[in-house]
């Protein structure tokens, strides 16, 4: 190690440290430690004058290490690193001893506290001696974004990025854009036209030069890391094209629940039991009729088909309640004489304007019937004497009566479920799925659109059931993250990440599986593993687990920690 010139600065923090710890004796003790060139004590190290003192000492005394014994590094580590950087010293050659939150504020016995402060300062001095200058890495940030899925979520995210001036590639499995929204006529709660919304988005996408649309296409492979992905895309199963990408937005949407799986509804056996998407087709065609062409005098709508149930899906599919109210109004508009009944468990009218929509729906005389979660309403063919095709038998909870409901047409509000191919997509872009198959976000509140893999975002219903406004908001949220990264031009990778010393690596590949961010790749020909700096989050799990201690945790190496252990126990 070059000749050490360590500067130690003991902060009084006004009286917060000084009222328990004798700062002067800590300073005097620090001056005696090996390698310490200068030791000062000052009232407020974090204030501007305090930092000026450090910069001045580095320049005049040629200090090559700095230790600040003050508050918690979580408060001012960044401040003192910036001070060192502005003085020309590599910021990773600075270390802090926490003698306020973890010493003066929590111990009243000043002798013990001062002795502990000395120990913590000694540990920092020994640690900083082993610290090496680290340079952050920068990687190029390819501005192109891959959008998987051409539904409303994918279109919105693509438009947001393209109108910001950056190239986007949309890969859509089907042969046209629009996704599930093209199967819907009007939207709840204001009966706005879903068709106009999709047509406007598609028109904008088509007319935007920055967007390349690849229909009938699939992503075969994705390699590299954030800012430097390479995507292999095949169209019509043909020769794959390779595209350089910076980020990936997964907007693969949802599949509706197969109503046939619920035996007691008799979907598939009873002709006039249809799903919500069948009904949307009838609305578009202007023909709401039973299978044999008659206008239904009685219609029934059943909520939570496949949702909120132990047998199928435990979650609530969030959009069906408002869809049911929409259908009740649409039925009454198309067939004014039709009597509509609505079987629900809880009426989830939580959205903006939805409670008012629920209240207005009572003006169309819908008969709302509440059944218990877990109950099985049974649909059976009516007898010849009845004036309707089918009868729905259920235990109605608000009246406590066991009733049967006449129905010529029954609309099943099928819930949302993860697409069958979601598992392939998850493996491709290296994200994980929850027990129901929805993709998992890195944190529902901190980071609702990011995933554990940097540069891969999940938006819309592929993450969990949601309505159009929430889908559009999430699509734009992902775009915001990507715009922010592209605006910075390059990816700054913090200097702190793991590094494999190839000469010691035995190629056992234990670390490859271990890393939650799959940031360690195996180099087949060299038979060695190596860490991808950008993907590594520096948690150090691999460093501790490596059987041949071949992985070095930069800025948290074993040597540095051993030095600290020695420092605190001397």
């Amino acid at each position, binding site marked *: 190690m070059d000749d050490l010139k360590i500067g130690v600065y003991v902060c009084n923090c006004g009286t917060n440290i000084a009222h328990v710890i004798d700062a002067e004796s800590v300073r005097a003790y620090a001056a005696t430690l090996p390698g310490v060139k200068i030791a000062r004590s000052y009232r407020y190290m974090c204030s501007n004058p305090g930092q000026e003192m450090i910069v001045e000492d580095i320049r005049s005394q040629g200090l090559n290490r700095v230790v600040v014994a003050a508050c918690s590094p979580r408060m001012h580590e960044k401040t003192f690193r910036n001070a060192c950087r502005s003085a020309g010293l590599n910021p990773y050659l600075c270390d802090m001893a926490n003698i306020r939150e973890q010493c003066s504020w929590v111990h009243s016995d000043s002798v013990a506290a001062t002795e502990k402060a000395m120990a913590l300062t000694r540990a920092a001095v020994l640690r900083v001696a082993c610290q090496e200058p680290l340079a952050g890495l920068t990687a190029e940030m390819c501005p192109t974004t891959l959008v998987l899925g051409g539904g409303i979520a994918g279109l919105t995210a693509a438009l947001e990025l393209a109108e910001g001036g950056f190239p986007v590639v949309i890969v859509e499995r089907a042969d046209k854009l629009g996704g599930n929204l093209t199967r819907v006529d009007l939207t709840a709660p204001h009966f706005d036209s879903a068709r106009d919304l999709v047509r406007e988005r598609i028109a904008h996408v088509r007319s935007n030069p920055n967007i390349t649309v690849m229909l009938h296409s699939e992503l075969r492979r994705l390699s590299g890391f954030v800012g430097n992905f390479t995507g292999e895309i095949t169209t019509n199963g043909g020769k794959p094209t390779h595209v350089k990408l910076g980020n990936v937005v997964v907007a693969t949407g949802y599949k509706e629940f197969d109503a046939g799986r619920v035996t007691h509804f008799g979907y598939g056996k009873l002709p006039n039991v249809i799903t919500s998407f069948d009904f949307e087709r009838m609305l578009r065609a202007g023909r709401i009729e039973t299978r044999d062409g008659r206008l239904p005098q009685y219609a029934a709508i059943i909520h939570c088909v496949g949702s909120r149930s132990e047998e199928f899906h435990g979650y609530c599919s969030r959009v069906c309640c408002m869809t049911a109210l929409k259908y009740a109004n649409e039925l009454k508009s198309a067939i004014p004489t039709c009597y509509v009944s609505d079987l629900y468990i809880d009426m989830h009218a939580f959205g903006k304007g939805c409670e008012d929509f629920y209240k207005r729906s009572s003006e169309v005389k819908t008969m709302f019937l509440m059944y218990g979660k877990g109950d099985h309403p049974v649909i059976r063919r009516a007898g010849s004497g009845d004036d309707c095709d089918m009868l729905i038998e259920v235990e109605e909870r608000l009246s406590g009566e066991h009733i049967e409901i006449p129905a010529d047409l029954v609309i099943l509000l099928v819930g949302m479920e993860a697409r069958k191919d979601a598992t392939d997509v998850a493996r491709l872009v290296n994200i994980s799925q929850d027990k129901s198959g929805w993709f998992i976000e890195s944190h529902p509140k901190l980071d609702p659109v990011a995933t554990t893999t940097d540069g891969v975002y999940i938006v819309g219903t592929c993450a969990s059931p949601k309505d159009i406004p929430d889908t559009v908001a999430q699509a734009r949220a992902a775009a915001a993250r990507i715009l922010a990264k592209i605006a910075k031009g390059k990816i700054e990778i913090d200097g702190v990440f793991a590094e494999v010393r190839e000469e010691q690596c035995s190629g056992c590949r234990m670390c490859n599986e271990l890393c939650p961010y799959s940031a360690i790749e195996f180099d087949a020909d060299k038979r060695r593993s190596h860490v991808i700096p950008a993907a590594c989050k520096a948690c*150090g799990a691999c460093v501790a687990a490596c059987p041949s201690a071949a992985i070095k945790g930069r800025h948290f190496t074993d040597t540095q920690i051993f030095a600290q252990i020695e420092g605190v126990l001397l």
Partner: protein
Amino acid sequence: MSYEPKLVGFLCNWCSYTGADLAGTSRIQYPPNIRIIRVMCSARIDPSFVLQSLGKGADGVLICGCHPGDCHYSEGNYKAMRRYPLLKRLLDAYGIEPERVRLAWVSASVGQRFADVVADMTERLRALGPCRVKTALQTDQIER
């Protein structure tokens, strides 16, 4: 001077270290016997750190991490949870009382919990007396 046990604490930056800081901001007092070393995640704590601490004269070692499910790196604490029983068996083999080493989940939002853990550990170590294997465990110094 009566026997004062020396306790080394390895705290993960995102939850337990922040919890210890919160104990500070809320001025919750606890015994000064603990000396805290910060690591980024409880998964980083190599069993050799514990042995080295005991070898260098520590009477007890505290390993802290986030509550399962709260880990900033999503699964780091599960790794620490797996290594801990093996380490305890190793200590047993060395004839070191397993109670000298303890694993505790400390969340970033409750300072009191960290203080209680430290106080409890200090009392237990005071009862156990000094750790006799200070020299016996001198592990060879290999360049790491």
